[in-house]
């Protein structure tokens, strides 16, 4: 519509000026001037008609838009003429911008996106730790939770939650549903209203109350087909009736987020504590705590308050909280849990792609500079015709903007494609399919495009402004525009490029060496030829006796399958699950607690896992639930607690029980390959009741030659036949478990490695381009040198030296920046020092090699110049 307005305004101005000319011509005629003369006289009086029209038009403010459109059209024409240049520039920018888009979208989904709860910044995680024993974050025991809930003064809402295990039988098939047991205060604290029905009341938290449950949106849709009359229906979970009282709205998956790995919770049930539990201080650390800050309270005040309560209740029970069992409490802003590495890996990847973008922009800026030099005459003519410096700058920026915008769009497409590719890989720490290119990511990409436009456009714009008109208009082309400042520009761009490349190379070198070191770490067990079948035996359905019977039956039947060499049972799989228990060694003070990793296993677990038995014996059928409790410990535990004695026969206390050591086995990595091996206590799965977990994993070792994954189907039918109601959670192999535990390291290595390769390639192209151009420009000089007797080898050396000089400067900067940058990823490194000479040296050498390679062809071309043609060229 504005365009029509503009057209009509144009016509208006035309008409007005024409009428003016007519009036003036008439007046001239009236004063006796002949008709023809009158017309010209009128025109003279008016002055330059075009300029008048221009100035009048300018009043109406169309000029800016007109000029912009003009610039765009002009740029389009230029690019069409030189399609190769445009393609290279756009592709380079697409790679740089696309990488940034992809990494940012992952970072956004995992770390940056705000939580979907109102005033999410006021949500606090309260956690405990045992500073004398254990680094990690712990939850609270029931009475401790109650203490924090009742005695703190800074929170307007306080809630607790624990992961729960729910078995659901539908159509005779047992299904395991992930969910959480939470206090009734959780939903008001988070501030989310249910979609249907209500959430639980405090009454329903009592152990005697009727069991209720709140469903998630997804579960409601998949199992109840979004039936609005679902409220009040009964669902049988863990063999017990739960009444459905509410359905949560779409997107509510507390405490997971969309990017959290694994299944999001399907339902929430009340968290009840018996009165016995409420008096059992320091018994467990299972209850996670979340609270909402009152208005006007600061984080520091919350910290102090929480610490005060912790000190208070520990003082009230000095018998329990003494020795090693001292708790420290802390409060921090609540955020979803991700693996420890995620918070370092993602910013590291972001930095790497930032450097990549710098390199891409430097290359494109160099390309534009080269073109700017060729367009010197055109620019000078424009200047002579009256173009202002501002106008020229705007034109250059418009051209650059078109390039960066096209690069940005292509980059988004590249990012989208690579995210889809990444989806195929499963990373245990992040759910990649939740990452998408949404509005926030697009906004970020536009910002990156804008920045790239400025970075690339500054150099040519500056050159345009300062180009010397007279030199450029002279016929001798060789005088045109290699001013010293422009040469310095080009060189500094290359130095920046090389420095960035070196940093990324160093980073990838360090990651590579760390990874090599990690895969050399001995596992302690043999992961080949194994199949894992995960099941869960919940307490309501399986009494201890029934559980043992089922386990033994299934183990026996599985062992008799053809292709199966041996079967064992465990509750926790190394490198996938972990569990710690606190114990006190016999003869030591009763409050000197220590931690050990723990798993409940069957007697032949060690044999099946090929963990060597170093002393004593493993569990046998003699170790039943009624016979004295025994344990098998690992080497580290033996060394740490019974250094010069035979641990067999020694005892320790755990959770009110006394256990005797009957054997020592070799060390295995349970927590992670890059963490040191912890003391480990194994108990017999048939002897001890696991209080905390209902998990049961059948471990099959296949005969040689048998593919373990093919055994899955027969294993499944065996289990079904033994007990129809036992849910099978999934199959995997120990190899998969091991590689999945390394997944995030492997992927960050692959990514940073690819970025390093791309950076090297771009730097190669950059150096090659700059040197080629220099040679082309200095053909005459080369011709003169050769004519004066220089040998071709000397010319080659001259140019190679130039290339190496540039590289050396860039490398120097890169090494210094690299030395600072690697401090941030020191937590990721394993077995390599941060200032690892091999990685640094390797990166430097690689870059020099690339610089030499890039300089070689232009150097050779320079040495081949025919002096006669060079001197004749004028």
């Amino acid at each position: 519509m504005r365009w029509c307005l503009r057209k009509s305004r144009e016509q208006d101005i035309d008409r007005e000026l024409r009428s003016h000319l007519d009036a003036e011509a008439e007046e001239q005629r009236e004063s006796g001037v002949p008709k023809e003369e009158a017309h010209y006289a009128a025109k003279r009086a008016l002055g330059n008609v075009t300029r008048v029209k221009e100035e009048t038009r300018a009043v109406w403010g169309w000029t800016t838009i007109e000029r912009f459109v003009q610039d765009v059209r002009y740029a389009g024409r230029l690019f069409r003429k030189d399609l190769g240049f445009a393609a290279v520039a756009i592709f380079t920018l697409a790679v740089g911008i696309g990488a940034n888009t992809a990494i940012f979208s992952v970072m956004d989904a995992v770390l940056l996106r705000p939580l979907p709860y109102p005033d999410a910044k006021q949500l606090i995680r309260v956690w405990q730790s045992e500073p004398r024993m254990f680094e990690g974050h712990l939850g609270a025991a029931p009475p401790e939770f109650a203490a924090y809930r009742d005695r703190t003064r800074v929170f307007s809402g306080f809630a607790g939650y624990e992961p729960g295990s729910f078995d659901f039988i539908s159509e005779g098939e047992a299904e395991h549903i992930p969910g959480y047991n939470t206090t009734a205060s959780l939903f008001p604290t988070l501030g989310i209203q249910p979609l249907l029905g209500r959430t639980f009341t405090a009454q329903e938290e009592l152990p005697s109350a009727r069991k209720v449950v709140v469903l998630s949106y997804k579960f409601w849709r998949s199992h109840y087909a979004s039936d609005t009359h679902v409220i009040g229906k009964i669902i049988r979970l863990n063999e017990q009736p739960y009444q459905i009282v509410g359905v949560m709205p779409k997107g509510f998956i507390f405490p997971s987020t969309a990017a959290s790995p694994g299944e999001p919770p399907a339902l929430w049930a009340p968290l009840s504590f018996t009165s016995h539990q409420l008096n059992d201080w320091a018994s467990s650390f299972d209850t996670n705590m979340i609270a909402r800050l009152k208005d006007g309270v600061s984080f520091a005040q919350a910290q102090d308050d929480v610490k005060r309560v912790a000190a208070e209740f520990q003082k009230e029970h000095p018998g329990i909280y003494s020795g090693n069992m001292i708790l420290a409490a802390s409060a921090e802003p609540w955020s979803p849990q991700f693996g420890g590495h995620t918070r370092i890996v993602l910013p590291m990847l972001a930095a790497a792609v930032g450097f990549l973008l710098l390199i891409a922009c430097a290359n494109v800026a160099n390309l534009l500079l080269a073109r700017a030099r060729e367009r010197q005459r055109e620019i000078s003519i424009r200047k002579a015709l009256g173009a202002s410096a501002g106008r020229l700058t705007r034109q250059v920026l418009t051209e650059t903007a078109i390039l960066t915008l096209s690069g940005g769009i292509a980059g988004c497409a590249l990012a989208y494609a690579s995210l889809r590719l990444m989806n195929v890989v499963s990373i245990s720490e992040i759910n990649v399919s939740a990452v998408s290119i949404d509005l926030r990511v697009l906004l970020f990409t536009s910002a990156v495009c804008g920045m790239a436009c400025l970075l690339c456009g500054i150099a040519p714009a500056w050159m345009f402004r300062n180009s010397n008109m007279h030199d450029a208009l002279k016929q001798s082309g060789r005088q045109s525009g290699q001013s010293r400042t422009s040469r310095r520009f080009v060189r500094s761009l290359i130095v920046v490029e090389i420095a960035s490349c070196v940093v990324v190379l160093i980073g990838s070198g360090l990651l590579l060496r760390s990874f090599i070191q990690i895969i050399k770490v001995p596992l302690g067990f043999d992961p080949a030829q194994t199949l894992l079948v995960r099941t869960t035996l919940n307490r309501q359905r399986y009494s201890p006796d029934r559980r043992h019977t089922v386990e033994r039956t299934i183990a026996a039947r599985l062992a008799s399958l053809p292709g199966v060499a041996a079967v064992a049972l465990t509750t926790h799989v190394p490198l996938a699950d972990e569990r710690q228990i606190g114990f006190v060694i016999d003869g030591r003070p009763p409050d000197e607690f220590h931690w050990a990793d723990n798993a409940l296993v069957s007697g032949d677990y060690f044999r099946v896992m090929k963990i060597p038995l170093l002393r004593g014996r493993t569990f046998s059928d003699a170790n039943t639930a009624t016979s004295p409790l025994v344990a098998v410990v690992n080497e580290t535990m033996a060394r740490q607690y019974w250094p010069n004695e035979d641990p067999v026969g020694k005892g320790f206390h755990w959770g009110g029980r006394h256990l005797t050591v009957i054997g020592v086995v070799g060390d295995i990595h349970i927590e992670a390959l890059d963490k040191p091996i912890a003391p480990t206590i194994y108990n017999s799965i048939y002897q001890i009741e696991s209080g905390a977990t209902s998990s049961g994993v059948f471990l099959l070792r296949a005969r040689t030659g048998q593919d373990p994954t093919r055994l899955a189907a027969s294993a499944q039918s065996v289990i079904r036949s033994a007990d129809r109601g036992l849910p099978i959670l999934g199959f995997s192999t120990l190899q998969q478990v091991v590689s999945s535990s390394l997944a995030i390291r492997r992927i960050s290595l692959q990514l940073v490695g690819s970025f390093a390769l791309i950076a090297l390639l771009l730097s190669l192209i950059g150096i090659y381009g700059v040197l080629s151009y220099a040679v082309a420009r200095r053909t005459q000089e080369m011709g003169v040198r050769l004519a004066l007797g220089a040998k071709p080898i000397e010319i080659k050396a001259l140019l190679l030296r130039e290339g190496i000089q540039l590289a050396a400067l860039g490398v120097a900067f890169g090494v210094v920046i690299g030395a600072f940058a690697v401090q941030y990823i020191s937590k990721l490194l394993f077995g390599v020092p941060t200032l690892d000479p091999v990685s640094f040296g390797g990166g430097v050498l690689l870059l020099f090699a690339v610089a030499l390679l890039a300089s070689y062809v232009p150097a050779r071309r320079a040495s081949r110049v025919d002096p006669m043609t060079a001197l004749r060229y004028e």
Partner: protein
Amino acid sequence: MAKEPAGRVELLQGTLDMLILRTLLFGPAHGHQIAKHIQRTTDDLLQIEHGSLYPALHRLERKGWLAAKWEPAAKDQKREYKYYRLTAAGRKQLSAEESKWKQMTQAIARVMWPAEEG
């Protein structure tokens, strides 16, 4: 007749606006008439390039001090001219510019001819 060099027109831009507004105080006129009027009234001393008149007229129209309309000429009904007339805002602007001009000329006079002060 002294011809005003192109540079001087820039200086007179603000003054040109004032002259145009004043001219239109008498009644609506089209561009050519305004130019001729100024020329005649100042006895050809102030010769405005007709070309600088039109950007000024359009600027004043954009600012809302003038209203423009195509009307047939008084003399010859066949021809149409774009007639400008003063708006109420334009009238206010005119008095504002007048007082500013008076202030400025008084100040300059005081510097130039200080004896006349006493």
